C-alpha cells in the first residue's frame, strides 16, 4: 500500500484517470480510457518519478458488458504492483493502441489477447492468432463462448453436475452469460 505512489499518480495523470486510484494489499490500480494508453505507459516508463520499466503482464478481460485490457507494471521506485486498466472497450469492436513500441515483449501477449477476445491492438505488427489455428472463427475466452459440454449430450443429462451450480436449474449451455462490474 504505497500512499506516495497514489499521490504521484493523481498529480501526474489526474485528468486522465476515469476512476479514483484504487489500492488494496500491494496493488495500485488506475483506470484510463483506451486512447490514453500509449502516453500513460510512456510516461510511466520514462519518467524519473515512476520508472516502471518491467512489464509484468498484459491481459484481456471481458466483463460481459465492456472489454478491458489490463497491464501490470513493476518498478523499483515503488513497493506496489501498478495495474493499468484500459476500460470501456466495446464488445463489438474492441480497439486499443499497442505498447509494443515500448516493450517488444508485449507483442505475443497482445496476440494472445486478440486470439482469445478479438481485441485489436493498433500498432502491433504481428496481430494474428497465436494459440488457435489460423482459420478459427471464434474468440474462446469471450463470455458468450460456451464450453462444449459432453454431459449435456449424454444420457446422464438430468444429473446436475457441479459445473452447472451457478446457473439456474433449467439453463442450457449458451443461454446465460456472466457479467461483472470490475
Amino acid at each position, binding site marked *: 500500500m504505497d500512499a506516495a505512489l497514489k499521490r504521484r499518480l493523481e498529480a501526474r495523470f489526474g485528468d486522465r484517470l476515469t476512476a479514483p486510484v484504487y489500492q488494496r494489499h500491494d496493488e495500485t490500480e488506475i483506470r484510463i480510457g483506451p486512447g490514453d494508453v500509449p502516453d500513460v505507459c510512456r510516461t510511466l516508463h520514462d519518467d524519473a518519478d515512476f520508472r516502471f520499466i518491467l512489464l509484468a503482464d498484459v491481459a484481456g478481460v471481458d466483463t460481459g458488458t465492456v472489454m478491458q485490457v489490463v497491464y501490470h507494471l513493476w518498478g523499483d521506485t515503488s513497493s506496489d504492483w501498478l495495474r493499468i486498466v484500459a476500460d470501456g472497450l466495446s464488445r463489438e469492436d474492441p480497439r486499443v493502441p499497442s505498447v509494443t513500441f515500448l516493450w517488444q515483449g508485449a507483442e505475443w501477449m497482445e496476440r494472445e489477447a486478440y486470439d482469445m477476445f478479438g481485441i485489436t491492438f493498433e500498432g502491433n505488427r504481428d496481430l494474428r492468432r497465436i494459440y*488457435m489455428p489460423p482459420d478459427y472463427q471464434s474468440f474462446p475466452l469471450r463470455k458468450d*463462448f460456451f*464450453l462444449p*459440454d*459432453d454431459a449435456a449430450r*449424454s*444420457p446422464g443429462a438430468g444429473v446436475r453436475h457441479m*459445473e452447472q451450480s451457478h446457473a439456474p436449474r433449467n439453463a442450457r449451455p449458451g443461454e446465460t452469460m456472466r457479467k461483472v462490474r470490475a
Partner: protein
Amino acid sequence: MALSRKSGPGLGVGPDDATQVSSDAPANEPSALTVNTTAVGQPIVVSNTLWQSADPNAYQGNLEPEVTHLREFEASGAGRRDDARWSGALEIIPTKADYVLDLIRANSLWPLLSGLACCAMEMMSSATSRNDMDRWGMFPFRASPRQADVLIVAGTLTTKMAGPLVRLWEQMPEPKWCVAMGDCTCSGGRYKRSYATVEGIDRVMPVDVYVPGCPPRPEGLIYGMMKLQQLVKDRRGHWPDRAIGPTVPADV
C-alpha cells in the same frame, strides 16, 4: 550433334572423328543430356521407357488421389494386406517363423519421440537410469517416424496438433503400434470439457495399449510396454483388425 557412328578402322582417327573432340567443346553435347539453362526450375524429366511395373496399380496408375483419412483407409482395405510376412518363395515356411518374427519385433520396439506434454517427462524418466526401458530394447527414441515401431503418445492432444500427429502415425511404416499414455490421451482426462483438445487419441488413430494415470508412473508405462510386448507376441490387436474410434458406445 549426335555422336557419329563409324564402324571399322576409321574410328578414332582423323580430324572429324567426334571422339577426339573434347567434351566441353560447344558442339559436342550429347543431346540426351541437354538442359535448358534459361529455366532453372525445370525438372529434368527422363521418360520411363526403361521398365514398367507388372502391377497396373503401381505408381498411382489407377488409384484415386491417396486417401489420407484413416477411416477411408480402413474402408478401402488397403491396410489389411499383410505385407509383414514372408513373401514369395518363402511363404511355404511354416508359421513358427512368424512366431520368431513376432518375438524379434516384441523385443526391439523402437518408440518415436513424440512427447507432447507432462507425460513426456515420465516417459523420459522411464527411459533413463532409474527405470530403464533399455532392458527391453526400447532405448532408441527415434526422431523420425520412418524408423519407429511404437508411437507412445504422451501428453494432451490438441485440435491443432491432431493433424501433425495423424501425419506422424501415417508416416510410420507397418508394423506399428500405438500406446496412449496418460489420461489425456485415453479419454481427454482433466481437459475433457475443453474447446481445444481431442478427447482421447482413439478418436483419430487406433490404439493398442491404454496406460492411465496423470501422469502414469514410469513403472506404469513400463507395465504398459510389457503388455504391448505380450500383445505383439500373441498377435492380438493385429493391425488390420484394429478399429478406429472410441470403443465406448456413442450415446454414453
